[in-house]
């Protein structure tokens, strides 16, 4: 019995934490990576576990056959796991009205497994009244070891090989299998009572083979039919999806973690990515040779930077290898993958910078994701900017998307003496930033592959190239001084998590709003 209790304890920990990983993945996707998603799942999960412990305590007190009861609870847990898979499209979209149902469902899936926690401790400690501490800790250790292994196997390996829908179905089937095991030990007699568990396992197995769609119903399609979603790439790093271009123009639209990433487009006539924001670096830097791109995404920005005159090498740090798979499918950007001057590393940008303290660059470019998303502080804080600054050659330029965070400008001014703004991007340097006298020649020499990046027509009055050459630069000081949010602008640090929380987007619960500090008004990007 002790061994069975230990096995159940381990398995429950494994399946619970695996399911938590899946919930975090799905809820984060449904909420486009808002930082509250993790806390929401964690809280719902823990409430479920806590209430489950109470249920388990009651069974320990009243049940005459605990093992049989445990099996029954596991069957119900498996049924709820599978129901959650099919209810996902209803409960997961980001809307206040659906939130209670989502919390209830997460708590229920966790709670039913939590019922087992006191039971397995009780079963594992029977006849051990002299050494309760040891027997409890042995069973608890089994649970914690399962809980440790769950995230490793599921988060690290399983989600890299199967999609999130199949993983959820698999968790349901394994929970049902545990129930079968418990019943087999408690009460192994063939009969009608086994019909329901057998049907459950069969239904779960069919859900593994043909899982219902969860990601596509949740995916942002800019209001278009979900059939417009052309690609979905899932791996352990996250979920990328691609939408066909609205009205057939501007290139496919990429989303990372259900937040807009950019367009697969390098045509400056259309300029759907506003790649002129990358070309401004070439217009300002006197002679860039080495460039670093933090975040590859759909590759359009890197394709533009790689073709700037004088650029000898581009290093790209991308956290999700799924983008490489995506880029390979598009002729406009696929040449990046075979370009000997472009080297792509799969890593966390900040960790890579720290691991390569001697690398220096003329240009560092990051099209930062929306500032209100989880962990953006890591790429917007003054601490991070100082680390990038140490990797810039004298006169080097760092360009970063502010995504309408006025704090990002304030922070840039704290670290760099010279900061200018252009279309929501922040350009930082230790040297004064000004346009080169030969800016037009630089743009005319820029290439996308073999062809010029800018057609002659774009140099005519009002054209994007002409504006790059002629429009005056706006200093960040001037921008802040004329912004509505100037009084609330603060320096972002690793410690204050400002862009994600206090100055990010408020959480979904409207009733929480009066309890939170006021969010500054949103600046135009």
């Amino acid at each position: 019995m002790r061994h069975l209790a230990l096995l159940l304890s381990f398995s429950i920990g494994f399946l619970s934490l695996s399911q938590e990983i899946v919930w975090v993945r799905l809820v984060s996707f449904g909420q486009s990576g808002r930082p509250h998603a993790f806390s929401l799942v964690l809280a719902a999960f823990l409430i479920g576990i806590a209430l489950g412990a109470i249920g388990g305590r009651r069974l320990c007190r009243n049940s005459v056959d605990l093992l049989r009861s445990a099996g029954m609870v596991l069957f119900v847990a498996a049924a709820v796991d599978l129901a959650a898979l099919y209810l996902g499209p209803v409960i997961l979209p980001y809307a206040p009205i659906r939130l209670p149902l989502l919390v209830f469902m997460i708590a229920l899936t966790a709670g039913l497994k939590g019922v087992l926690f006191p039971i397995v401790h009780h079963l594992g400690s029977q006849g051990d009244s002299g050494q309760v501490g040891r027997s409890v800790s042995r069973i608890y250790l089994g649970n914690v070891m399962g809980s440790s292994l769950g995230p490793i196997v599921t988060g690290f390996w399983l989600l890299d090989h199967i999609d999130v829908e199949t993983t959820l179905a698999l968790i349901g089937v394994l929970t049902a299998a545990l129930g079968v095991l418990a019943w087999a030990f408690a009460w192994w007699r063939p009969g009608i009572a086994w019909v329901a568990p057998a049907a459950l396992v069969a239904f779960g197995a069919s859900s593994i083979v043909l899982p219902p769609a969860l990601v596509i119903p949740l995916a942002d399609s800019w209001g278009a039919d979900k059939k417009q979603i052309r690609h979905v790439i899932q791996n352990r790093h996250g979920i990328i999806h691609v939408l066909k271009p609205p009205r057939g123009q501007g290139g496919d639209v990429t989303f990372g973690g259900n937040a807009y990433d950019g367009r697969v487009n390098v045509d400056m006539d259309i300029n759907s990515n506003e790649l002129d924001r990358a070309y401004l670096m070439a217009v300002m830097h006197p002679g860039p040779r080495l460039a670093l791109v933090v975040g590859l995404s759909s590759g359009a920005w890197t394709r533009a930077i790689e073709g700037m005159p004088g650029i000898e090498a581009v290093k790209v740090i991308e956290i999700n290898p799924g983008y490489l798979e995506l880029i390979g499918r598009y002729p406009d950007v696929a040449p990046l993958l075979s370009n000997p001057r472009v080297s792509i590393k799969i890593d966390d940008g900040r960790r890579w910078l720290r691991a390569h303290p001697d690398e220096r660059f003329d240009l560092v470019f990051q099209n930062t994701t929306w500032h209100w998303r989880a962990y953006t502080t890591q790429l917007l804080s003054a601490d991070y900017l100082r680390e990038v600054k140490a990797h810039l050659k004298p006169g080097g330029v760092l360009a970063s998307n502010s995504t309408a965070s006025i704090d990002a400008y304030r922070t840039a001014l704290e670290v760099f003496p010279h900061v200018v703004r252009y279309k929501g991007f922040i350009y930082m340097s230790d040297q004064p930033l000004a346009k080169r006298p030969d800016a037009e020649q630089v743009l005319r020499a820029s290439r996308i592959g073999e062809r010029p990046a800018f057609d002659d027509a774009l140099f005519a009055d009002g054209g994007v190239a002409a504006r790059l050459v002629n429009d005056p630069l706006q200093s960040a000081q001037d921008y802040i001084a004329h912004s509505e949010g100037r009084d609330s602008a603060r320096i972002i640090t690793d410690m204050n998590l400002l862009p994600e929380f206090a100055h990010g987007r408020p959480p979904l619960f409207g009733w929480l709003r009066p309890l939170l500090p006021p969010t500054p008004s949103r600046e135009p990007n």
Partner: protein
Amino acid sequence: MGGERSIGTTRIAMAFFLSGIAALVYQVTWQRLLFVIVGVDIESVTIVVSTFMFGLGVGAVLGGILADRFPRRILLAFCLFEAAIAAYGLISADLLVWSGHLFSGLDRPAAALLSFTLLLLPTLCMGATLPMLIANAFRSSGNVGVSTGTLYFINTLGAAIGAIAVGFFLFYWFDVRQTIAIAAAMNLTASAIVASALVRK
């Protein structure tokens, strides 16, 4: 006698509830600080979560052994462990930031080992408290399942409130360092609540 016992049970429940809140606040805040060292990709998240869990597991073994060996001093040990968690909490922000600078550029296995080393002591203390308190409660209830269910409920409910507090409230008003200090204050309060009961006894 029954009254004294119920007061003691209530105090232990309150203390363990506060301990649960603090544990989740630590988990989230320490994760944030460790991400600077190990990165924010899925490998790093897995490293931090698994390290946390491993520490809790080893702590549980330690707590179980201590509870059996020193059955009359379980509550005193709880007070000391809570105080130790608070002490670590108070220095943790500086320690983790300092380690991040000192060991910057570590490769993945070395960064994982560093995370493990930094989190081992406090997670070990956290993990030890549940078996200790279950063993203590078993002496009055005589039913391991009932004791486990009650204490696990209280601690986990605290953890859930900690998760809500940190993600929906504390990070809006306080920075990471201040949030950790609030958690440390909870551990100290938990320790003081049980210690005061022991002194009266």
